[in-house]
């Protein structure tokens, strides 16, 4: 048996290629749109812009080589590159111990994530240090320059905990047996609801259902839960949501309206996003040239939630479809891993990771093109943001971990229930 890193190279290329591609696309987009975070006109991709940047933002001429590079690339780009590197390091770190050993700590990790989330909730009542409030939300735990979003890591912890819980059981094939995994999921959801961060909160559900589904929970039970949950949605919409959240759902149904005031206001983001995509056409405006790249503020959140629109703007339909294909490759790889291993924990882990990544990607794309409500949600491996990248790389590490360690279990393949439906 070859050492782990060799197995990794053999197997890993089919995963590394799409992830590298996505990261590169993300970095390129950030570099093109990077103006620094503080103000407009900061050096960065300034060469194609006509107006000189304001004097205060001009870097001193006697900069050292490193700083010069920093300004040439753009602060945001450099930061993202650092996140990528540390993300890859984290992935390597996760690869080191066997995923089964990590699985031993699934519940403590889950507990740790819950505690961190609870801290954020606690800050609503008591001032907790290191929890900044931004735009009336509490999503961050920040120490100096480093900040993390516990909810991002919660996803990974939940996958671990669910896989741990479901791996040897049959209970979830009864309706009552669905309750513990549901509770496992609902607890962080409630905590995240207090932040509030609707996007991340809803991201936990596909993970749960996909894992239950592939683990073999009865379809009628799952459908019943979904229908019951779905039935509460109107109530939630009417009483549980804030106005702005309702407005975001209305955006979906009013996006074609001719009401200009509405388009300027509530519909603004989605319309700008569609304009960015629409002006891309088949092959895009070309790298760094489109108006949405040159003018900041045409598209809000262009570095994060709406980076897909920038991709479609610069590289057109072709580029957008390539990005979607990259995610498809990741899914294929993940499912392949899940199929090849016959360790139940590993299987569930692989499926959970795949779902976590792909569901977020698809939903992000859907909201960019007006198929889903706009919620703060990043495009995995592409959008700017440390916690999201790190969580995704950790998840990827778990997937690779499963891939390179296929324990020879003398057991029947898990989750092959005889009376399946």
């Amino acid at each position, binding site marked *: 048996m070859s050492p782990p890193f060799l197995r990794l190279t053999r197997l890993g290329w089919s995963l590394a290629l799409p992830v590298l591609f996505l990261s590169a696309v993300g970095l390129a987009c950030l570099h093109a749109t990077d103006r620094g975070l503080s103000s407009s006109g900061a050096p960065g991709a300034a060469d194609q812009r006509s107006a000189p940047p304001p004097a205060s933002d001009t870097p001193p001429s006697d900069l050292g080589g490193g700083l010069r590079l920093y300004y040439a690339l753009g602060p945001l780009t450099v930061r993202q590159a650092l996140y990528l590197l540390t993300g890859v390091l984290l992935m390597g770190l996760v690869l080191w111990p066997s995923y089964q050993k990590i699985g031993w700590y699934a519940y403590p990790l889950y507990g740790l994530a819950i505690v961190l989330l609870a801290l954020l909730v606690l800050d609503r009542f008591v001032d907790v240090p290191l929890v900044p409030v931004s735009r009336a939300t509490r999503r961050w735990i920040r120490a100096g320059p480093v900040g993390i979003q516990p909810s991002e890591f919660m996803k990974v912890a939940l996958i671990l905990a669910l896989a741990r819980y479901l791996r040897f059981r049959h209970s979830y094939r009864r309706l009552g047996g669905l309750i513990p995994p549901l509770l496992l999921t609902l607890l962080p959801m409630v905590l995240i609801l207090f932040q509030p961060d609707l996007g991340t909160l809803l991201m936990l559900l596909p993970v749960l259902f996909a894992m239950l589904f592939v683990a073999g929970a009865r379809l009628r039970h799952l459908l019943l839960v979904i229908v019951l949950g779905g039935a509460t949605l109107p109530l939630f919409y009417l009483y549980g949501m804030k106005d702005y959240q309702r407005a975001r759902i209305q955006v979906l149904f009013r996006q074609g309206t001719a009401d200009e005031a509405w388009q300027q206001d509530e519909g603004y983001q989605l319309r700008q996003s569609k304009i960015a995509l629409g002006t891309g056409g088949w092959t895009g405006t070309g790298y760094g040239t489109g108006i949405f790249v040159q003018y900041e503020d045409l598209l809000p959140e262009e570095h994060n939630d709406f980076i897909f629109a920038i991709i479609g703007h610069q590289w*057109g339909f072709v580029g*957008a479809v390539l990005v979607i294909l990259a995610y498809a490759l990741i899914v294929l790889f993940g*499912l392949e891993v899940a*199929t090849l291993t016959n360790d139940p924990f590993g299987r569930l882990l692989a499926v959970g990771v795949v779902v976590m990544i792909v569901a977020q990607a698809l939903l992000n794309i859907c909201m960019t093109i007006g198929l889903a409500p706009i919620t703060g949600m990043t495009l995995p491996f592409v959008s700017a943001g440390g916690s999201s990248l790190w969580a995704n790389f950790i998840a990827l590490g778990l997937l690779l971990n499963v891939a390179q360690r296929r324990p020879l279990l003398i057991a029947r393949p898990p989750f092959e229930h005889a009376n399946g439906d």
Partner: protein
Amino acid sequence: MFQKRLTWFWVFLSLMTLVIVARLAQIQIAEAAHYQALAERILTRRPEYIPARRGAIRDRHGVVLVRDEPGYDVSVHYGALALREDYLLQAARALRERGDYAADAKLRDIAGQLPDQIESMWGRLAALTNLPRAELEQRADRVRVRVSRWRAAAQQPVREEYQLLPVIENVPHETALAIALELERYPWLRVVPGSRRVALDTDAAVHLLGRLGAASPERIAADPLRGDELGGLRPGDLCGLSGIEYVGEVALRGRRGRIILDYGWRERERTDPVAGHDVHLTIDMELQRRVLALLEKAVNELRPEVRAGAAAVVIDVATREVLALASYPIYNYERFNDEYDRLRADARHLPLSFRAVQAQYAPGSICKAITLIGGLSEGVITPQTHFHCTGYLLPNQPDRFRCWIYNLNPGITHDMTDNPAGQDGESAVRNSCNIYFFRVGERLGAERLCEWFTRFGLGRTQGTGLIEETEGIVPTEAWLSDPRRPAPRHHQNADAWNYAIGQGEVTTTPLQAANVAATIAGGYWAPVRLAYDDTGHAFGAPPAPPQSFDEAHLQVLRRGMWRVVNEPGGTAHRWAPLASRDYELCGKTGSAQTVQRVINWRFTCEWPDGRREEVVAASKPEALALFDDPKPEIVARHANERFPVLLAGETVPAHAWFIGFTQPTSTPRGHRPAGRVYALSVLVEFGGSGGAVAGPVAKAIAEYLVEERGAGSREQGTGNGEQPQERDRR
């Protein structure tokens, strides 16, 4: 089972992907053009306009009479005036882009703070301009109302809703600078270089110069440059409403500049404004001032009770260029807006009336010149035809259709004072014998008389293009019997008698009268010229082709007009002969009987319930404006106050007329004068005797013309109107 479920899972994801790709294709390929258009729209901001400097108005020597002087306007964006949400969001975006707010601040939050900022801007603006806050709010309100009216008229958003609109105009330089320094940090405020129309000691021509005012929707719709974004009128523009400002509007206006900003508030395209062209008047401003001073003197020599106004026109016969077009009283150009209410209410002096082209007067005896030519040309008389002056026309009615001499001295006729054999054409003109012209008119008939009036340019404009210019009335049968008239009727015998001596319905303006004089001197009628553009092209459209007359008949008339002034016994001989040895004046006096002018009326108002009330007002609308709803109906009106106020037994003083032309003394008697010939008309309202009141004014004007301007040697004018083909239309 696990594999199967994985397969289902894969299928599910694939379907989702398909949906996404389909939607992407819809946006990026099928609807690409739509989004491209939207992008263009948000990328291209509404253009901002830079006003063009309006051309100057110069007199015939190039002296500037009115010009634009640079000033500053404070403009505020309509979106900020109306606190429009979409604008506030845009402004918020601009402020954030500029760094006034944190990059992650929400536009909505910033926009929410902007109304307060706008509020404080008004406060600072009031302090800096020393204007009361309420005044600023009123001005802002006016702009808002104006724009909402345009919007209502257009029934769609109008461009002004996306533009900076002037709120305070003509801010002094220092204030403008202070405002710019302190308040231009607000994207909705801009100090814009504008301009102020300044008249340079030119009140003598204040009616002629005219005024600027806001362009009305009707005016914009009728603009010849409509549809031209930079040249055409736009709501909120100033345009010439009257006088030469109106006539020369298109030439004076120039083309506005335009700045198109892109989304990043950077200039994308700039078109510089093109200043308007100057307009060159044919008016000699120095002469105009002299003429006005003479008119003022003439009016002030009248009894105070009858002092009203006067007008005079001087025309260069050869070119038909108007050298003076004076109306008295005048008003002050600068103070017009402040004094407007008072000026408008002055029904006695009517200072706003541009009498020289606008007011219509019975021509009185000056019309006899036309009657004579008509009679001679139609063959109903010959130069030798004599009519006895019997004092009155109808043997059984000695108190009607009298000769003026009989009127003044009952029992005296021209047969007694002049020639017992009766009057021929020449002497009838000299004596202004009514009886002679009654007879001629009788032979011609009213309709043929009207034709001859028309040939001499009565009843039509003279081609100045002035919006004030009126046509006067030639009471043809068609006009008289028009059912739209208050009391339509047909010609009667008395009409021919009346018309022949310039009474009855026939009216004329001083400009028409002057052109009649020019026609007699020059031998042909032609439209007058008042202004040229830079290329020498005359403004105004000729109302009719030139009309020439039989020289032999005109010689009879000219001899008569020579005798009016230069022969003892002529109606103007005591007042009008020139002191000059080289030049002489030929003319015709007129004392046009008129009626009192009603200054205000007593209206009897009645409500549906039978209640009645009497009110005094200048006009029907003003009377109705005195009442709230329900408005009463006006069932009767009676003149309440008249002008002039008469003494007991006094008749209304006649309007004093004089028309004439200068000629070198060397001109053979009655021949068409050669060299530079000036025609003129003078009218003094309620002046009484044409010879005694208008005559001296004409004499003084003529003496100024021949002595100080040199009637014989042609002085160099602007050079623009000198092209022979433009001038000579014989």
